[in-house]
């Protein structure tokens, strides 16, 4: 799987590299996070208790309400934000919030992106090119599956 490329139908932001945190679950800053501590806090979330700081967060779909649009900006101001957000399906709030916060965002792949990227793998995102992509650089997770 090393150097496997996955192309996104929708993308914004700048190129980054980082470790993936992957789960088959949704994302909402208000519903799911303790934004002060930088961890998932909703007990039912697959990633409950885990830190998202400095991680490329790869999840299924945007959930919940409109608050995330302001919250991503506030989280970025304290450097308590994921490195990037990758979703199977984004909603307008994620795009609006990512645009305001300067957070790289990708969605709409031709596969279930949470199934093909193992949690902990090193990935590269390039949203700013004509054909935006997510590249799996190194999978040193020994086949550990993504969560959920």
């Amino acid at each position, binding site marked *: 799987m090393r150097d496997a490329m996955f192309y996104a139908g*929708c*993308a*914004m932001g700048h190129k980054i590299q980082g470790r993936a945190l992957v789960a088959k679950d*949704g994302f909402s800053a*208000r*519903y*799911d*996070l303790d934004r002060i501590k930088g961890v998932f*806090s*909703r*007990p*039912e979330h697959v990633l409950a208790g885990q830190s998202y700081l400095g991680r490329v967060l790869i999840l299924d*779909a*945007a*959930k*919940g*309400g*409109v*608050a*995330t*649009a*302001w*919250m991503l*900006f*506030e989280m*970025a*101001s*304290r450097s308590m934000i994921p490195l990037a957000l990758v979703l199977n*399906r*984004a*909603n*307008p*709030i994620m*795009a*609006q*919030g990512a*645009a*305001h916060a300067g957070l790289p*965002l990708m969605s709409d792949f031709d596969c279930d992106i949470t199934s093909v990227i193992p949690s902990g793998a090193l990935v590269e995102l390039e949203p700013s090119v004509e054909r935006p992509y997510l590249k799996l650089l190194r999978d040193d997770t020994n086949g550990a599956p993504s969560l959920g």
Partner: protein
Amino acid sequence: MKLTDEERAMLSGECGPLRHWAIAHQIQVGRYFHATDLVQIAQAHIMCDTESLGEAGVQWLERWMGLPDAQRRVRVPTITDPRGTDFFAAPRLKQENWMVERERRTTVALESCGILMTNTCINYQTIMPPLLGEHVAYGDTGVVIYTNSVLGARSNFEGGPSAFAAALTGCTPRYGYHLEARRQPTLHIVTTFTPQSLDGWGALGAMVGKLAGDYWSVPLVSGLERIPGSDEMKHFGAAAASFGSVALFHLSGITPEAKLARDFSASVSSLPQFRLGGRDLEAFRQRYGQTTGKVDLVVFSAPQLSIVEIQQVADLLAGRQVKIPLLAITSPQVKPDADRMGLTARIEAAGGTVLAGMCFYNSYAREMAEANGWKSLASNSAKLVNIIGGYGYSPTLLSMEQCIDVACAGGSV
């Protein structure tokens, strides 16, 4: 994206740095969703509670106050969503001064742009409901889903920054539910029961939202035996939006775009079909009805209560006394009516508290829990029950009558 001369002028900075930010933000979002142009809007509605804004967001708004009036004034009527406090009741909630001060600063910043501080998520019941086919830029998922589905107006979820941008430019990127093609149903849900209570409508909305699954799904629901009232639609939509991020639903033969079954007849038979019955409702209630045996407070909120709901709470409390906090939260438009009609006095004589202009979950709910020792909460709002777990509460969904029984029994369920 195709831009008009006016939009190009804003992008070039001719209309000042704030409008330049606004149109550039809209273009970035519009491009993400492959919008080809922007559409003129009639109104904007901004979510701007400071629990979401944080200090960074408040300072970001304040930075524009020094601009000339012509450069910072909104171009369409613009109103606000509930705030993070009731300015008259913050001490009773044990909210701290910095929270209230942050809300005051936000008020000053937004008013300097000509924004009307309505502080409500039920503007479709109280302010100026948009018309069928009208394009608007609304924040608050409950407002958007009601506006799209019940009124037949057109809006995407517009988060605070984007609704503010739309207010400043008078337009919004034309994608999602501004496009007719996106408003067609994508799944068909047949219900074999028709809820009888607000929490029941919320539960049905929650299950519909979960089945729909995401923003781009449009559920068509059939099988309802009567037309739900405005408050029932409110709870149904708010829950569908909360549990599923859904922004538009159709009720067969009821909502304006599904008034005639033939509207969708070409495609309905080919849609994925699901059934919801009494057992599903019971399973949902089991999941959100579990408690540790005692709740610390009862909250009626999310969405804010209509005058009719306030009257129902007052009637149910007649001759009784609550033994744990009971909060009934409404809009600044409804509250004076409730005061004038004696409803507030009746609720407060029974030991309850009527609040206005806020909503429970966006009012520093975590801090209020710590300050007041609140851990478990009962509500008839499926939306609130869904959200509040993330703030550390153990929530229970009950009917309005059951909530009041629990409050009068000292929290015993």
